[in-house]
């Protein structure tokens, strides 16, 4: 992924250092830092960044006025307003002068990066956006969910899944994703892992005491929680786009093949001491 140039506009040395810190080790490269509106306009002309972070209070003009001037030079530039105050009237005025996103101080690294990724989708590519901003939310949800529900640690990996099918023997819980982007998450595991998972969750010591329906219901409920948490992670970042989940559909059997035509899918694997738990999350393309 190519580097994306960023200019920071903020009169506070501390704020500039914090934003620079957030962007360290990412594909966003700080090419200029401006302390005033006049300096911002001049540096914009020299460095042509793709993204600008804009403070509201500047010594010679406010962030709105500064954004207006820069947007007049180049209407393609993406401006993110980072301010202590964020209210509806600021957002409305800001949109009029071409500000694309609004973040409130203190900002988190995740919020900043996610926002930047979305704003420069055409530069970094759709798959990178889906991976960084959406699939990773499910990686955290899977790892934390497994740990909080059964106290088991897992090594988690994420990869783009270019298989046309998932082949499942055991249990697969399908949860639909609606809103933006639309898609579905499927968590699957073999019968042995399902039985161990539900025995721990239900405090059953002897595997013989585990009822088959109880085992699948337990996994179903766990998946509902994990996927719900993943979607909450996403909604926390993109507050203007609400994603929702549908009730789960739970498939059990052997040699089941699940196909999802036209989705971009990611395979998340949690390797645990009770076996492997997979989460395949797919998003509709072209949205």
């Amino acid at each position, binding site marked *: 992924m190519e580097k994306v140039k960023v200019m920071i506009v903020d009169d506070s040395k501390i704020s500039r250092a914090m934003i620079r810190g957030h962007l360290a080790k990412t594909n966003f490269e700080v090419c200029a830092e401006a302390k005033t509106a006049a300096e911002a306009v001049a540096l914009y002309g020299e460095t042509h960044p793709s993204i600008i972070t804009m403070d509201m209070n500047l010594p010679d003009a406010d962030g709105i006025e500064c954004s207006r001037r820069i947007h007049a030079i180049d209407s393609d530039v993406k401006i993110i307003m980072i301010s202590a105050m964020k209210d509806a009237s600021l957002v409305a005025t800001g949109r009029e002068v071409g500000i694309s996103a609004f973040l409130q101080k203190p900002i988190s690294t995740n919020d900043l990066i996610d926002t930047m990724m979305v704003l420069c989708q055409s530069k970094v590519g759709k798959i990178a956006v889906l991976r960084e901003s959406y699939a990773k939310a499910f990686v955290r949800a899977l790892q934390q969910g497994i740990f909080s529900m059964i106290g088991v640690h897992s090594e988690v990996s994420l990869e783009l899944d270019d298989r*046309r099918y998932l082949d499942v023997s055991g249990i697969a819980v*399908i*949860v*639909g*994703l*609606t*809103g933006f982007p*639309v*898609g*579905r998450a*499927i968590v699957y595991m073999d019968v042995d892992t399902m039985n161990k998972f539900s025995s721990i969750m239900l405090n059953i010591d002897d595997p013989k005491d585990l009822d088959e329906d109880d085992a*699948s219901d337990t996994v*179903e409920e766990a998946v509902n929680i994990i996927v719900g948490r993943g979607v909450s992670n996403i909604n926390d970042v993109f507050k203007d786009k609400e994603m*929702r*989940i*549908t*009730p789960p*559909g*739970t*498939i*059990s*059997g*052997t*040699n*089941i*093949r*699940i*196909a*999802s*035509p*036209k*989705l971009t899918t990611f395979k998340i694997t949690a390797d645990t001491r009770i076996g492997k738990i997979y989460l395949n999350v*797919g998003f*509709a393309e072209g949205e």
Partner: protein
Amino acid sequence: MDAKLVNPFVDAFTSVMPQMGFPEPKRAKLYVRERNAVSRGVSVIVGFTKQIRGNVVYNMSEDTAKYIASTMMMGMPINEFDAMAQSAISEMSNMLTANAATNLTGMGLEVDISTPSLTIGANFQVKISDSQYLTVEMDLGGQIVELDIAVDQK
């Protein structure tokens, strides 16, 4: 679940299928089942949320799926239930569900639908409800497409 929620799905099926070149579908059987739908071979699951929550499964044999895919592709012969045929069945499920969603909106119910998941296999079942749900068998030119409808109004 409420029986009045079945009609939007049956109506969608009866109005959409003839537009794709199928004979007029007939409602063959309607019955109540519990928890699990047993796959006939090819099952497409679609989730619903907002004012209607639950799942609908379009359930059919692989032969029926091949017949549908072939008819959708202007009679192109289909020997294997391959990626293209699967894509056709997914597309059909999308159209039927979107049409049903429009019918539900017409009843004043706001719905959002997920993307379809197409599942293939001889030996599996799908749990779509904690309690009872309704199954409608639709006769499509002598082939049976089963609609398993497990949705509730919130």
